[in-house]
């Protein structure tokens, strides 16, 4: 057996994924312990830590991060499982499934901006209710948005995470024989939700555990969504960390580094709480399953779960529509439900700046995802040549954990260190540094989306071609690549979408000098005019959307026979 780690492409993956995370963590830990040569601090000390401890409202920030992260993850997972349990094979589900891709491709920041315009006191929901209550003739002073308990943040996270977890669960569903198991259990007298919970959910959960933990790590440390939807005084921990890290005062940056380590601990603690919850739930499910608890009438629960999903979908659709409306709104006073005057003024006003940030975003995203695709293909092909099968396949626990590493470690915890390292190398604020930091987050998704299709191609095609006298290179270019083109196009589009949605890496590593639609939209969120915010958020949504559309179209043009159904 060839030692996997010695093969160059696999090594490259390790370097690109583990390298930056590890280096970043070290780069964060040193300033947290008082070592930051750029600031003239060369001696280890606990000053940054004690500065952090004296920060007012710190424990509340920690609790807000923990609470919203855990609640959002648990709620999202619960909704996904209830939806699958109750409606897996229904026509309703097929419709919802079609909404999955478009909802997934909406960047977090854009979704948050749209949601804010819907649920704010002067937002769409209150405007819709205004005609029915005289008390609402002016916007009420309710703290719905940025509420002190981070409920609106939790809601925003759930809207974004449900589609993601649903996609992951759908991919794993085939591997656990879901339908026959549910049918068998139903014929034994179990209600639909009980049948799914006892017979499918335990194994399905283990299949999607890593993505679930990634969602947890993300939700407890999210910055862009929390800036827009989360509470202000105090903000969630991650928002405060990001603020300190960008501070011109280097001492405060060192305190930020200490806070970033605290964030790592908070997300780690959330994972521990989650694992305890896993144990508890699994024992409970086993207890109920072996006790024969049938729960055979579950109509109400099933209906309720669907109602919740409908509410989420409605909120998501409303968010997108409101963004579209605001971007062309001339006059739109409270409590009008629609703008009174329409104009393209905001688009023209954003004009040249928008063109510049869109092109920066596009060039950055496309370069990064193309590079990622090449690296991943090289890695998968090493496996194909060595063993006839790609190296990485679903289920290889160790390798998957490695691939997920950048998604399992909170971004703020290692991005600061990366920023410090780039600073030392004189690369800070450069396009290259930003591209490299994006690559860290794009690679995992490109690997995940290519590994399946690569493994699914019948290995006998290659053997047949080789025995016909074709070289490995010819097999790759003439057989593998054309057949994989649709998957490759989707992977690149996904990479683009991931890159577009990156806020923190662009901001921290770019140091404000690399401006994408995302950093622009989030910057405008506090205090910018609503039409201008909407224009940028829409630009943010259009880019990934166009990417996926192109990915669906291009292979049809390049390899039309793959789609014609007849190989003539």
């Amino acid at each position: 057996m060839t030692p996997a780690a010695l093969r160059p492409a696999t090594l490259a993956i390790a370097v690109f994924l583990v390298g930056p995370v590890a280096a970043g963590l070290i780069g964060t830990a040193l300033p947290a312990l008082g070592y930051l040569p750029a600031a003239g601090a060369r001696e280890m000390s606990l000053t940054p830590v004690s500065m952090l401890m004296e920060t007012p409202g710190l424990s509340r920030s920690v609790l807000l991060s923990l609470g919203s992260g855990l609640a959002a993850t648990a709620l999202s997972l619960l909704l996904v499982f209830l939806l699958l349990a109750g409606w897996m094979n229904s026509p309703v589900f097929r419709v919802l499934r079609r909404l999955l891709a478009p909802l997934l491709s909406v960047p977090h920041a854009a979704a948050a901006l749209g949601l804010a315009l819907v649920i704010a006191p002067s937002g769409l929901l209150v405007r819709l209710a205004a005609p029915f209550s005289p008390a609402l003739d002016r916007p009420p002073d309710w703290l719905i948005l940025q509420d002190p308990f981070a409920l609106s943040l939790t809601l925003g996270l759930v809207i974004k995470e449900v589609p993601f977890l649903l996609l992951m669960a759908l991919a794993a569903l085939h591997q656990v024989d879901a339908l026959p198991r549910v049918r068998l259990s139903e014929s034994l007298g179990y209600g639909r939700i009980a049948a799914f919970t006892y017979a499918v959910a335990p194994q399905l959960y283990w299949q999607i555990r890593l993505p679930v933990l990634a969602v947890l790590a993300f939700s407890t440390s999210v910055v862009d969504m929390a800036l827009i939807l989360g509470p202000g005084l105090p903000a969630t921990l991650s928002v405060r960390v990001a603020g300190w890290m960008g501070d011109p005062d280097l001492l405060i940056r060192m305190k930020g580094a200490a806070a970033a380590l605290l964030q790592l601990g908070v997300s780690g603690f959330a994972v521990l709480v989650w694992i305890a919850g896993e144990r508890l739930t699994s024992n409970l499910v086993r207890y109920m399953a072996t006790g024969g608890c049938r729960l055979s009438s579950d109509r109400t629960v099933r209906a309720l779960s669907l109602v919740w999903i409908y509410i989420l979908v409605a909120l998501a659709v409303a968010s997108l529509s409101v963004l579209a409306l605001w971007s062309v709104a001339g006059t739109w006073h409270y409590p009008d439900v629609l703008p009174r005057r329409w104009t393209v003024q905001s688009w023209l006003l954003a004009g040249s700046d928008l063109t510049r940030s869109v092109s920066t975003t596009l060039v950055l995203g496309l370069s990064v995802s193309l590079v990622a695709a090449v690296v991943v293909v090289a890695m998968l092909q090493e496996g194909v040549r060595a063993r006839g099968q790609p190296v990485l396949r679903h289920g290889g626990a160790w390798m998957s954990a490695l691939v997920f590493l950048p998604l399992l470690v909170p971004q703020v915890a290692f991005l600061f260190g990366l920023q410090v390292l780039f600073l030392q190398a004189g690369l800070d604020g450069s396009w290259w540094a930003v591209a490299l930091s994006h690559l860290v987050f794009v690679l995992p998704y490109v690997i995940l989306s290519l590994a399946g299709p690569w493994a699914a191609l019948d290995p006998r095609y290659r053997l047949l071609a080789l025995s016909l006298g074709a070289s490995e290179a010819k097999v790759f270019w003439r057989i593998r690549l054309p057949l994989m083109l649709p998957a490759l196009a989707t992977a690149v589009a996904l990479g683009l979408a991931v890159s577009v949605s990156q806020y923190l890496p662009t901001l921290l590593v770019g140091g404000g000098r690399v401006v994408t639609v995302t950093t622009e939209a989030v910057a405008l969120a506090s205090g910018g005019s609503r039409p201008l915010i909407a224009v940028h958020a829409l630009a943010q949504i259009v880019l990934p959307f166009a990417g996926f559309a192109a990915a669906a179209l291009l292979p049809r043009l390049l390899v039309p026979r793959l789609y014609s159904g007849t190989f003539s």
Partner: protein
Amino acid sequence: MSPLRPSSGLALQSLRLRLNGRVLVSLDAQVAQGTVLTVMGMSGSGKSSLLAALAGFVAAPFQVEGRIILAGRDVTDQPPQLRRMGLMFQHSLLFPHLSVGENLLFALPPGGSRHDRRERITMALTEAGLDGFFTRHPQTLSGGQQSRVALIRVLLSAPQALLLDEPFSSLDASTRDTMRCLVFEAARTAGLPVVLVTHDPQDAAAAGGQIVSLDP
């Protein structure tokens, strides 16, 4: 288990299974307790859809016409969990996240103390010659043992009929004969009407009941 009663058995009254309006299966049959109705057909002939219809899993674009009467109850419009039709598939489908004993506990109708329930499973395992298998993991069992556990599981759920979907086809030749005997014997003892779909003529011969062919 249930004694013989005049209104017992499984009656399929002008049963028609349509796919997008086209008739896929058309069947009129009376399956007495302890006897087997064998439905033969190539793959794609609709025989698995027929079993799904009997068990209650048919959804659009399939439609069911006619009546399904089980032990005197009209179950045609009942949800699967109320029909009491026991299912066995080609694969044993023992849940890999539960032990052998837990798989059986899962099938046992609710009621009784946890201790009594365990006791019943242990006894059932002993009767089947699988003494001490309670805590074993399904994957550590041989194919034949897995099939036997699957059979115990379905019987413990106290069904009023058995629906078998090619249950012997994944077994090797010697195990297959043993399992055929075990299953049909168990159905006779428990007085269960059985519907067996298969493409293997030997299954039909061993079943020794009415045979319906779905092939044109």
